[in-house]
Each structure stands twice: as structure tokens, then as C-alpha cells.
């Protein structure tokens, strides 16, 4: 998996990717650790195992670019630069949360950093991302939009409606499909007559690329190419990233005991874990330094959330209308 990277020899990129991956992994692990204490007042859909998709794609973006995603959105929020302290506070239901405690884990948002929101209803933000891209094109800006979606979302009608409109209007939008094979507990082959998602997408008139085995560097390369072309006026593109969800659909534990998938299936994905693989290739001192900084940042974010207040009673009725 790392052959491309080693040839490239880009230690700065490696360090950035490692930091982003390790940071998300450790945030998710910390959430899983705290979860049983009931301090987190929101269902969590953890990104452990899938961090590379958000990291590889967002590393190709500029701060003024924007992303839209799904309820499994912690990785996207953090990879795009969303404020970690406000994310943890949001999970704790505190007023300093990114949505003032009124959105929770499934509705993370940080508009200043280009995180435009996530939705609990599958595929819902796909057309929102397309509309945003229309505005960018109308205003002749050089920004781009990334729409993160799951393999299940490709079965929704609005997915195809959105691809058609994006291609019709040649909008600057990159669709990134995180294919972890499972819609909750149901495998892709039980849901789709053919598994060729990219083939279906190409009929809408946009280029596609499929990234195998959670390959962060290959994804990053493809995202850079597509995004670069979009800034010069090329239309939309689609990347399917094969990845794997290590934990249960919602919550902090594993779900192998349910019997819908074998622990064995996870082993190859865990063996190729990009967090470990990229970390092992790093200079140990640099890695230790990154790890220390990440741990300190997470500890500070948890402290921030713990010490923040719950919203006051008048917050119930605030923000219904502007």
C-alpha cells in the first residue's frame, strides 16, 4: 500500500497524513472510552477504520473549499479542520458545542472551516453539496465541494438525480463514496444487483476512480488530480474508496457477535491499517512528537467539553427561525 508513497518520499505529506489519521483515530478511541460513562449525550457512528477516506480527500483541499457529509462524519469534520473542542462539547450536549448542543454527533458543522453540515438521513446532503457547487460556479469562484457519502447512499434516488444535475451543469464537485460494504448490517451484495458503483456513475457522464484497500495515498493522488482539474473548469468526478468499518454501526463496541460478518473479514483491513503503516514509516522522534501533541489536544478538548455549561432553557426556542 505504501509503495507509491515510498517512491514519492514526501516526508512532509506523510507527516501531515499521519497526524490527521492518528488524531481522528485517537479522538474516536477517546469517545469510545468515555461513552459508557454517559457523559456523551448523543449516538455516535465512529469512523475507526475509515479515517483514511476523509483524510486523503481533505488533504487535497484548500481552507475555502467546503465539504458535506453523513452521520458518520467525525473523520470528515476533523480532516477538514473542524474545531475539535467544539466537536467534543457538541457530543457532550454543551452550549459551546459546534451546534450549541442542539445537533449532536450526527449534525456536526463548522462553517468557518468549510464543514457545511452532516445529516442523519442517508444521501440527504448530496444535493445540498451540488447546490453549493452551483453557487460556486455561478460566482466564478475557484473553490470546490466534496460530497462524502456511503455505499448505501448510492441506492437512493436522490444520488442519481444529484449526479445528473452536477454533470449537466459541469459543477466543481467531487463525490467521495466510502464503500465499507455494509449498510448497518446488510452487505452490498444483498442490496445491489451489481457491485459496480463506478460503472453506474460513469453513465451520468463523469470520470470515476476506484481506490482499493483503504489506500490513502492513492486516494489523495486521485483527489488532487480531480480537484485541480475542477479549479480549471472541469466538471464533477467520483471516487469510490474501498474501506472497512471496524466497530458497530452505532456505538463504541464491535458487532462480530451479531453473526452478519466474520471477525476474519476484518483482519486484512486491520493488518493494512494506514495509521500504523504510515506511522511505522516515520522517524520515531517525529512520530512521538506528533503523538504527544495529539494527546494533549484531545485532553484539552475533553476538559473544554467537561467544563462547558449545558445550554440554558431559552436555548430551546432559539434558532428555530432567523
Amino acid at each position, binding site marked *: 500500500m505504501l509503495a507509491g508513497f515510498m517512491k514519492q518520499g514526501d516526508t512532509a505529506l506523510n507527516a501531515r497524513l499521519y497526524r490527521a489519521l492518528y488524531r481522528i483515530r485517537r479522538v474516536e478511541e477517546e469517545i469510545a472510552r468515555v461513552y459508557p460513562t454517559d457523559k456523551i449525550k448523543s449516538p455516535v457512528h465512529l469512523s475507526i477504520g475509515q479515517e483514511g477516506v476523509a483524510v486523503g480527500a481533505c488533504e487535497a483541499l484548500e481552507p475555502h473549499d467546503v465539504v*458535506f457529509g453523513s452521520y458518520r462524519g467525525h473523520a470528515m469534520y476533523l480532516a477538514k479542520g473542524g474545531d475539535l473542542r467544539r466537536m467534543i462539547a457538541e457530543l457532550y450536549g454543551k452550549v459551546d*458545542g*459546534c*451546534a*450549541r*448542543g*442542539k*445537533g449532536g454527533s450526527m*449534525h456536526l*458543522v*463548522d*462553517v468557518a472551516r468549510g464543514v*457545511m*453540515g452532516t*445529516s442523519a*438521513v442517508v444521501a*440527504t*446532503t*448530496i*444535493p*445540498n*453539496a*451540488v*447546490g*453549493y*457547487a*452551483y*453557487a*460556486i460556479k*455561478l460566482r466564478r469562484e475557484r473553490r470546490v465541494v466534496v460530497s462524502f457519502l456511503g455505499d448505501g447512499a448510492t441506492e437512493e*434516488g*436522490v444520488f442519481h*438525480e*444529484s449526479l*445528473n*444535475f452536477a454533470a*449537466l451543469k459541469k459543477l466543481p464537485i467531487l463525490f467521495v463514496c466510502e464503500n465499507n460494504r455494509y449498510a448497518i448490517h446488510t452487505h452490498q451484495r444483498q442490496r445491489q444487483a451489481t457491485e459496480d458503483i463506478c460503472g453506474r456513475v460513469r453513465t451520468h457522464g463523469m470520470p470515476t476512480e476506484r481506490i482499493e484497500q483503504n489506500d490513502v495515498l492513492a486516494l489523495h493522488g486521485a483527489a488532487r488530480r480531480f480537484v485541480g482539474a475542477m479549479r480549471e473548469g472541469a466538471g464533477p468526478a467520483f471516487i469510490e474508496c474501498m474501506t472497512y468499518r471496524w466497530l458497530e454501526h452505532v456505538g463504541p463496541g464491535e458487532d462480530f457477535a451479531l453473526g452478519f460478518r466474520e471477525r476474519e473479514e476484518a483482519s486484512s483491513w486491520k493488518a493494512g491499517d494506514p495509521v500504523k503503516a504510515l506511522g511505522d514509516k516515520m522517524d520515531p522522534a517525529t512520530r512521538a512528537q506528533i503523538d504527544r501533541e495529539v494527546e494533549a489536544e484531545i485532553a484539552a478538548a475533553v476538559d473544554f467539553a467537561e467544563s462547558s455549561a449545558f445550554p440554558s432553557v431559552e436555548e430551546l426556542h*432559539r*434558532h*428555530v*427561525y*432567523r
Partner: protein
Amino acid sequence: MSTDRALSFVDAIREATDQEMARDERVLLFGLDVDDPKAILGTTKGLVERYGRERVFGTPLSEDAMTGAAVGMALAGLRPIHVHIRMDFVMLAMNQLVNMAAKTHYMFGGQESCPLVVRSIIGKSWGQGAQHSQGLYSFFMHVPGLKVVAPSTPYDAKGCLAAAVRDENPVMFVEHRILYYQRGPVPEASYEVKPGKARVAIPGSDVTIVGISYMQVEALRAQRYLEAVGVSAEVIDPIWLAPLDVDTIAASAAKTGRLLVVDNGWSTCGASAEILSAVYEKLQDSRLPKARRMAFAPTPCPTTPSLEKLFYPNARTIAAAAYDLVKGGPRGWLPEERADLKDIEFKGPL
């Protein structure tokens, strides 16, 4: 604002759109067929030529995605107007309206809002049938975060559309096709008819009749039938259904002691149910008015004229119901149809 200039409902909508697009380059107009030769019954005529195909465009037949795109455009700082030639088609976009547009501001802690206008048209008569005739605005009244307006006059159509476009929140703008034939005074200069204020269209003392959307026209005709038999009806147009001006309706009902709400939809969980319960909650410490609702028959809308005419309330049945409220009990009075108060029917062909 007084004026001698008379405009049709169609031209009032077209003029409001034109003025808002000229005033604010963030305003966009799109939907199925907004740019075709028929131009949504004339309401979007000439706007492509004036503002170009990037700001005015017909869309693929993708109501769900285009509503979602409208939300995304609003998040990006634009002010989209999305047009549906049938309100029935809006059902394809419920997820985006209910789960996203209505909740954007709240769910994202005030970081964003969703200034979006959804225009949709209710059909009636000449066999439009079950899926071309529904007044489904009560669905949207139910959801916090959405505003709903159903103007009945050309004046309100223009002023409410301007107010809707300038509003920071998603607004469902409901038009009734039969109202398109109405003409009335409309000032040329831009103005707003702001959310949350009903209008007493005709003052009266014996009974309050609230008519929603097209039923306002029928209520005004009913007032004339009642006047001829010495019953004084006060007719109120709520104009905005969310936020609803309960105060104006409750004050009138308290004065007349009788309240008849006539809806252009079904009664169960409908706008008439909401108006009645809101009025009763407001008046519960005083003498409660006698009350009644009239609405669509509790059936899908049939196409054959012999059944369709039974499906809708009309001026004569409204007058009869108001008469019974005033006189007490069923009196069996139904006015003879007057030529000057006949229903305007859409004759077709489409």
C-alpha cells in the same frame, strides 16, 4: 399603499420575481418548465431573457435533488426560488424540506440559515383529479422552521412573494390556479406583505368567516349571499398560515360569537383544525364562539364534474353553513345561485 393600476395574480407574481431579481443578484429562479414557452402559466415570462440562463433555468425532473440543491445554494448565500407547477409534486421533496431546510438553522446551532422560497400551485376543476388538486400546506404548517403563505389577491401575491424572498427562512409560497384569473390593484413600486398578519377583508358583526387561499374568494361571495338575507359576515384572509395571526381571528370570533373556517384542503389535522384550536386556546377565559369547519370532502378529488362539485365548499354552501351558525341549527336554507357570484371554472383544455 393605494394604486389605480390593476394587475392579474399572474402578473403580480411575475412582477415581484422580476423586481426581487433586479434588486438582489443572489436571487435565482428554477424548476420544471420555468423557461419553457408557457412559463409556468406566465408567472416566469420574460425572466430568462432578462436575467440569463444561469439565474433562471428549467431543471431535470428531479424534485428531490433540486430542492436539496436549493438548500445548498441557500447555504452558499444565494436566495433560490424553486417553482412547482403542481403542489402535489412537492411530495417528492419532503425529505429536503422537512429534514433539512426546516432544521438547518436550529440543527447547526445558528451557524447557518436557509433562505429559500418554494412556489407551488394548487389546481382545481376540469378533471384535474386526485394528484393535480391537493392543498397540502398544513403538512408544512406542522413543522417548526418553515413559514407558509397562501395569498388570495394580486396585491398580497406580490407583497408576500417579495417578503418571502427577503425572509431568512424557508417559505412555502402556495398559489391557487383559479386565483390566477383574479385582477386587482397592485402598486408598481416594490413592497412587502410581511409574515404573521391577517387581513379583515370585509367587516361584519354576526359571523366570522375565515377563507384560506382560494376559499377566500368563495367566502367573499358567501358574504354577499348572506348580506342579501340580512346576515352580516366578517370575512378574514389569514394570508400567512405560519406564522398564523391568531389574534386577529380570535378578536373577530369573540366579537361575532361565531366562527366558520373554510379551508382549501382537508379538515383532519388541517389548517382549519389549527386555526380553530388556536382561537379556542386564546379565548378560553371568555365566552367561546360557536364554530364550524368546511373543507374538502374526506376523499381524493374525483375528476367527473358531477362528483367534483360536491368535493369543494362553494359560496352557496359556505353561506348556508354561516346562516345555520347565526340562526342556530340546520335551517335548510341554500341561496339560489346568482350570476354575479358564480364560480370561475377552469374550462380546459390544458
